[in-house]
């Protein structure tokens, strides 16, 4: 589904990603872990099409298409979804109006009829249960005055509505208490299918108790320096990142 080859990206001339290689197949969950500043969020942003990052080398093939060639909105319409680390508060735009616009623009791109108000409402109601989100929250301005947990839940709710093929969760667990974490993880797990794939970017192993990954990759200084299964996450939890850094330093010598 997604093939990343030798991806290099920089921001304002500073290289952040220095040659990422990754292959993701439908049905898989990949966790990207790593210390702060290793490039985890940059990878997520580059995949979603954030414009301040410049891709200097390499390619990303998504469903046979050059992903880097697509605008952020076309990536979304092709089924790529980024759950933001810091969801943006947008005063004056109601969540409902925003989501309906989004859904119908995605449908239009795919040559589907737009959803009328009634059908959209029933879609909302169905997905609301999934992340236990309150209707009152959705009648307010998008993310405005939401708590941290509410914002993250709203991200997963949007994901449920848009039904993406490739979801990228950028530190969705950060700052969540255990109850909120379980709700979010539960939502992600229910949306999981053999047709879609998920990239979970996280600093902590804790989330991976609830969203169990097929692969764990450790990102360090803009490269994937180690890959393994879920046990690698536990090892990182246990030993921290220093041993990885040492290992990298030794290989370099």
């Amino acid at each position, binding site marked *: 589904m997604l093939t990343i080859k030798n991806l290099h990206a920089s921001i304002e001339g500073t290289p952040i990603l220095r040659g990422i290689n990754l292959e993701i197949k439908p049905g898989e969950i990949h966790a990207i872990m790593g210390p702060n500043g290793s490039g985890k969020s940059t990878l997520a942003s580059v995949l979603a099409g954030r414009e301040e990052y410049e891709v200097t080398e390499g390619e990303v093939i998504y469903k046979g298409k050059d992903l880097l060639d697509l605008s952020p909105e076309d990536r979304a319409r092709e089924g790529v979804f980024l759950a933001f680390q810091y969801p943006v508060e947008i005063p004056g*735009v109601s969540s409902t109006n925003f989501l309906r616009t989004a859904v119908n623009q995605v449908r239009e791109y795919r040559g589907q009829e737009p959803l009328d108000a009634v059908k959209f409402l029933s879609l909302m109601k169905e997905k609301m249960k999934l992340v236990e989100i309150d209707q009152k929250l959705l009648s307010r301005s998008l993310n405005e005055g939401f708590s941290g947990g509410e914002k993250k839940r709203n991200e997963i709710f949007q994901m449920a509505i848009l039904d993406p093929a490739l979801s990228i969760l950028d530190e969705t667990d950060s700052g969540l208490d255990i109850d909120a974490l379980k709700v979010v993880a539960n939502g992600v797990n229910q949306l999981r299918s053999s047709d879609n794939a998920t990239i979970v970017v996280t600093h902590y192993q804790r989330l991976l108790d609830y969203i169990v990954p097929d692969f764990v990759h450790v990102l360090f200084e803009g490269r994937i320096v180690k890959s393994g299964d879920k046990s690698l996450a536990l090892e990182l939890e246990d030993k921290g990142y220093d041993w990885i850094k040492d290992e990298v330093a030794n290989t370099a010598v």
Partner: protein
Amino acid sequence: MSAVTKKDTSLSSSFLDSFYAQKPSGLFAGLREEAAKLLTHKGLPSAKDEEYKFTPITKKIEGNISRFGHSSPFDIDRTELEKHLVEGLDAHLLVLNNGFYDKNLSTEMPKGVRITSLKDLGDDANKIAKIVTAEKDPYAGLNQLAFQAGVFVSLDDKLVLDKPVLILHLAKSDEKGQTIHPRIYIETGKFVEATFIEQTIAVDDQVYFINSVEEIKVGEGAHIHHYKIQDENKQTLELSNTGVDVPKDATFTSFVLSLQSQMTRNNLSLNLLDSNCEGNMYGIYLLNGKSHVDNHTNVDHTKPHAESNELYKGILTDSSRGVFNGKIFVRQDAQKTNAFQQNNNILLSEDAIVNTKPQLEIWADDVKCSHGCTTGQLDDEALFYLRSRGISKENARALLLYAFAGEVLEKIENETFRKYCIQLVQERLGSKGG
């Protein structure tokens, strides 16, 4: 008269020469003479004038307008008129044709509303030019010198109007560039509840200068809404002086939507004359091309326990320019005043400019006053967030800009009119933006 030689007063002097050639007579002779004296003495404001520093309208007028006396009404029938009306708006229609009250085109007013042409006024003539005086603004003086058959509107005590009164200014210049001096006086009785919508229709795309004065005397305990749409032609030069007296227990709310003109200057003054009254001033300006809109507002708190709220928002693109100047004056007596003011702007191009200035003068010590102004670009992070959900860049932009303006549009209480304004705003933001 002695020749006035200063360059920046050339407009008024050439006009004044013709004025003095035929000394005023009739009902408003005194007012006209007083205005003429002031204009002879002070002239029209130049860019050196602090109040007109950013808005060189006098220069624009000198370049575009050749006749400063009052223009005459023109022929227009109801069918033509109806093309310009707000669709679906059920309103009592009050038409001023190039500043002249047009009884035939106006609809019959409900019981309790009296409309009199200014030229037919009796004792009420004494009320004219008390709220907006020639001293306040030279252009108000020019209007005072030149106005003709404007209207005097009077609403009886306790009258609650079920429909708004739409004051329609029809404006049309001959090819020379004319001046229109509409003058309106509105007084409401006690506990009146009424909405006035004011709209100027440019019948063609010729340049004209519309220099209006509106005086509103709100009755005790009355609730008056005053909405204004400025969506004229690209050549229009517009100056408006609106003065409002707000007495005890009364509320006055102004909303101004500025969309198109060459240059517009609005002077709005609310005089909160007693306790427990409220004055609200809201505005949106969406500017493109080279258009220039200047809102100068002034609220005067004179007695304790009164409140004022002000929110103006602007979205500017191309090389348009916006000016906002908000004066809040709180007198020593006006303890427990609440006064809030906010001006926010989004600039969509490198060449768009906003000059914004809050001016607070507070002489009382127990008051709550706040003001703030922001000028910035569209939030890139918000734009990316919307796009990452599949919304096109153009739509995301329109959605964000509309949300920005929406906060002000919500203040419009009349539903049909609000929807109409929403439609105008969305059309503007959806197409080329700004």
